[in-house]
């Protein structure tokens, strides 16, 4: 099994929970867990090789011509993270099953959760920086959905928005940084970047790149000064906090630092920035955590502090510090996730998270209490637990570093203080919650949670203890291979022992413990002191800041956007003029040896007809129906011109589009006044005519120049290759579905989105039907004229047959999915005209959104299918077969792709037209006529 499946399986798993029966909660959880579990098995299958130092890679070609591939790469660092993500993820799935109440939409929750999991796996296993960035943004989005899961509360919505804004903005900075890296290195492949040595560090853009990448990492990992979003993200359901905001997502920034460590570190700027930011975050988080009364708030700030610790380690620059950082990533994930889950249980059982209310829970839930106490002690860094080991390494490294030059002696001191603070808040957590008298004012009597809700906590706490006692045995190899990946070479000896003898780090630990106990004992004084400061609400600050940004942008927008089509057009035209000025001046009109086709009478006549009709359209623009009619005549004329100049494909398309446009215009016209008043003053009219004239002239000149060039275009290539390369003789269609399949795919996606947009925008919109036309004549009472009704019915099968025919012959003769789709849509619209909405809805399967979805999926899957044969995305395939009786026929993957185009076009066109047609409500006109 190749490693790409580690990401793809969970990605497929996004739909799994939605398919399960939502009333059977166990079933939903099981179905959700299956695919991540499979991914975990694949990871374990590859683990031995990676632990032995191999790097597993897998590449799926996307658009190899411009260097875009989907590549996956798993080394020691990725393995460590993958195990963390999948392992804790599975535990969270089990936990969430009991945490969510029966009122919550469980399938949706799991779906978001798995989406996040897949995105996170994508980040750590990407072999391409751009691809990693895409997954990076996906984690921001899925985190937004998860934080805002209880979207009925304002807090959740605000928290979600803030997290998205901060991490999204950081993501954009990161994108810029990545693109610069790509520019400098010449490739976005991780392998190439990692092998570029000191190229980046010595490049003149290094400061910019570093700043951009660090902003990305710091926003994601909630480092000072971007840390404020994390506490607000705590309005998410607790499993989300445990998973995203302690164990995984916030580690993505750390991961990025570790990933880029070999190529971006090794410069003073890195050491100073990273270590100082880490230190600041460490202290600020630890200090603030102490004063939080909300259990999750305490844990959130503690998380910030620990993330700062890891950042600090990565900024110190010694090799062992980097390894210590990796070790602490694992340890922190394990104890913090278990603490969050424990808090979730407490919240679940007591209905509150306020430490001033929750006291003495040991009596009520001793089992949970023991688990939480062990995890909290690990957080405090008490010996025999995993937290102790990495903290000890951290202390040792603070003594070794010289990250901030002469002032480096400050770091061990501040580290010890931070350690003491962390002991203090851990103690507060343990003592306030589980001892310290009786609970106050709880709505219910707390008791132990369901058996299975505790299992994930038990597993993680067991890991705390086991790793704490047998570190080398359990995580030694993993750390070693991850360390090799981060340091980009062989690794120094890692001292994974509990006992290092009496030394300075041990003393620091002891000081921290004693200091922590001291601080906790004297906490009243500290609380007193802290109460002098006004508490800053990050939310308010954030809103104020956001408001300022928006006001600023509005002001700029007001300068250029006057909400007027003429204005937009003028801007576009002027911009175009500026861009075109230079090339236009140098344009020589007639190319050499081009034979110009003589003008015949019929061409003159046809051109004159089109021109007159177009002119008449303009002149009559205020008589809207007449104008619509004239436009359709112009379209007909153009279609004839296409036919005359041997472009039957275009003629077919033009005529179909024309009719659809007419119908759309008629639908829209109904909601507008039949005539419009004269709005433009003569001066303006003159100006507009002048502008239009200039641009018409320019376009005509360009067209003429284009047509008189010697013919050396790309079309020769297409003509030569369409039969051999795409298996079709209709070059236009082969270009659409094969050579330029990617463009087409993009286009139908846009089409689908546009249709959905219109659908959504007009959702709740109701327009009253005027009782009469503009002359005051009441509408005819004959809704569906009898004969029209009869014939519409017989036209439909014929039209569908024609569209099927046009579709099937598309590959070799004029036709194809797009035209066929339009014809089908028009035929269905005819039914709407003849029979009305109700009639259709009773008789046809009219789920147009489903059409769009099916069409896009088919097109996408056809494209992805080529990966099964190790070919780039959307590589087409065709072959000829001979069957007895039926004879020889061709099968081509492009046909399937075309089917996707067809379905999308039908769905989009119908969604728009039918939706517009349904806007009216019953006319308020009485039956009496005249």
């Amino acid at each position: 099994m190749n490693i790409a499946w580690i990401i793809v399986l969970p990605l497929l798993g996004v739909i799994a929970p939605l398919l399960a029966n939502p009333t059977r909660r166990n079933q939903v959880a099981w179905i959700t867990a299956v695919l991540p579990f499979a991914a975990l098995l694949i990871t374990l299958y590859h683990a031995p090789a990676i632990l032995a130092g191999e790097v597993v890679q897998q590449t799926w070609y996307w658009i190899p011509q411009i260097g875009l591939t989907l590549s996956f790469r798993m080394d020691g660092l990725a393995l460590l993270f993958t195990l963390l993500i999948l392992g804790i993820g599975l535990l969270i799935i089990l936990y969430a099953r009991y945490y969510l109440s029966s009122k919550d939409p469980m399938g949706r929750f799991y779906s978001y959760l798995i989406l996040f999991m897949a995105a996170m796996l994508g980040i750590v296993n990407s072999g391409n920086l751009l691809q990693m960035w895409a997954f990076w943004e996906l984690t921001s989005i899925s985190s937004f959905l998860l934080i805002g899961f209880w979207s009925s509360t304002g807090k959740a919505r605000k928290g979600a928005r803030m997290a998205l804004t901060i991490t999204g903005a950081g993501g954009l900075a990161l994108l810029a940084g990545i693109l610069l890296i790509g520019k400098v290195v010449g490739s976005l492949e991780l392998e190439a970047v990692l092998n570029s040595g000191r190229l980046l560090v010595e490049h003149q853009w290094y400061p910019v790149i570093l700043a951009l990448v660090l902003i990305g990492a710091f926003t994601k990992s909630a480092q000072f000064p971007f840390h404020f979003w994390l506490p607000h993200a705590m309005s998410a359901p607790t499993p989300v906090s445990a998973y995203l905001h302690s164990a995984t997502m916030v580690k993505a920034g750390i991961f990025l630092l570790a990933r880029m460590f070999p190529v971006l570190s090794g410069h003073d700027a890195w050491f100073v920035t990273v270590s100082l930011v880490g230190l600041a975050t460490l202290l600020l988080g630890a200090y603030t955590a102490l004063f939080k009364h909300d259990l999750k708030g305490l844990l959130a700030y503690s998380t910030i502090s620990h993330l700062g610790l890891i950042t600090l380690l990565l900024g110190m620059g010694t090799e062992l510090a980097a390894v210590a950082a990796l070790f602490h990533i694992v340890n922190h994930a394990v104890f913090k996730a278990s603490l969050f889950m424990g808090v979730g249980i407490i919240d679940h059982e007591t209905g509150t998270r306020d430490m001033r209310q929750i006291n003495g829970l040991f009596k009520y839930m001793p089992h949970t209490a023991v688990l939480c106490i062990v995890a909290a002690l690990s957080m405090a860094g008490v010996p025999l637990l995993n937290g102790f080991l990495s903290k000890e390494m951290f202390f040792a490294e603070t003594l070794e570093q010289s990250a901030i030059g002469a002032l480096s002696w400050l770091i061990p001191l501040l580290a010890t203080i931070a350690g003491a603070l962390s002991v203090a808040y851990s103690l507060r957590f343990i003592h306030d919650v589980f001892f310290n008298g009786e609970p106050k004012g709880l709505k219910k009597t707390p008791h132990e949670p369901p058996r299975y809700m505790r299992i994930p906590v038990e597993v993680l706490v067991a890991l705390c203890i086991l790793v704490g006692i047998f570190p080398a045995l359990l995580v030694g190899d993993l750390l070693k291979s991850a360390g090799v990946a981060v340091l980009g070479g062989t690794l120094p000896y890692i001292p994974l022992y509990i006992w290092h003898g009496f030394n300075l780090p041990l003393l620091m630990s002891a000081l921290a413990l004693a200091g922590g106990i001291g601080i906790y004992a004297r906490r009243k004084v500290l609380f007193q002191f802290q109460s002098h400061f006004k508490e800053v609400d990050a939310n308010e600050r954030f809103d104020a800041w956001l408001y300022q940004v928006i006001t600023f942008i509005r002001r700029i927008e007001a300068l250029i956007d006057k909400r007027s089509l003429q204005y937009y057009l003028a801007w576009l035209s002027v911009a175009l003029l500026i861009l075109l000025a230079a090339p236009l001046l140098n344009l020589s009109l007639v190319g050499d040896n081009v034979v110009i086709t003589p003008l015949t009478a019929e061409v003159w006549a046809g051109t004159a007809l089109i021109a007159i009709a177009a002119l008449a359209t303009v002149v009559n623009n205020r008589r809207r129906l007449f104008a619509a009619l004239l436009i359709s005549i112009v379209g007909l004329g153009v279609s004839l011109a296409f036919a005359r100049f041997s472009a039957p494909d275009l003629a077919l398309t033009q005529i179909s589009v024309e009719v659809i446009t007419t119908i759309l215009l008629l639908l829209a016209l109904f909601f507008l006044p039949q005539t419009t008043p004269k709005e433009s003053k003569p001066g303006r009219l003159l100006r507009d005519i002048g502008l239009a004239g200039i641009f018409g002239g320019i376009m005509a000149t360009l067209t003429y120049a284009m047509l008189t060039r010697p013919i050396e275009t790309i079309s020769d290539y297409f003509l030569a290759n369409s039969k051999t390369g795409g298996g079709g003789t209709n070059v236009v269609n082969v270009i659409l579905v094969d050579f330029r399949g990617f463009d087409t795919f993009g286009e139908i996606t846009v089409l689908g989105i546009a249709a959905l947009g219109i659908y959504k925008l007009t959702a709740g919109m109701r327009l009253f039907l005027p009782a009469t036309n503009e002359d005051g004549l009441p509408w005819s009472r004959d809704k569906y004229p009898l004969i029209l009704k009869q014939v519409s019915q017989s036209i439909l099968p014929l039209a569908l047959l024609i569209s099927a025919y046009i579709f099937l012959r598309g590959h070799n003769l004029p036709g194809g999915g797009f035209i066929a789709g339009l014809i089908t849509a028009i035929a269905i619209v005819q039914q709407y005209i003849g029979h009305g909405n109700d009639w259709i809805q009773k008789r046809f399967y009219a789920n147009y959104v489903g059409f769009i979805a099916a069409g896009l999926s088919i097109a996408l899957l056809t494209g992805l299918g080529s990966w099964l044969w190790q070919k780039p995305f959307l590589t087409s395939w065709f072959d000829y077969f001979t069957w007895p009786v039926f004879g020889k026929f061709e099968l081509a993957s492009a046909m399937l792709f075309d089917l996707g185009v067809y379905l999308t076009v039908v769905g989009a066109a119908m969604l728009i037209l039918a939706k517009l047609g349904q806007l009216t409500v019953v006319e308020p006109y009485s039956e009496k006529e005249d």
Partner: protein
Amino acid sequence: MEYFIAALLILAALFFLLSGVAIVRFKDSYSRLHAPTPASTLGMGALLLAAMLWQGSEDTLSIKAFLVMAVLFVTSPISAYMLAKTALHLRLPLAGGRQLPEIYEQARNRRNDSSKAQEKSDQSV
């Protein structure tokens, strides 16, 4: 055969022209509605027959022409019917000829005599 095709083509051309003249010269919308009928029936029929035979002289008989004809024969009366209905609805007047205002009114209201009588009796009750 060649002369036959030529004759068909000329016939078609004449009928198309005829329709063109008719739509210019006819006096009211209702009469103009009649104008396309010769072109779309006989003119188009002759033209399609010519096209079929034309193809036939080179390759095989093209049945597609039949389809075009069938579609036209089904659709053009509907267009005319809908247009006439619209003209009635918009109270476009009849020009010249024999004016029968009563029947015009009946057609416009989609009632025939008997139902009108029915209505009158309803009103008297």
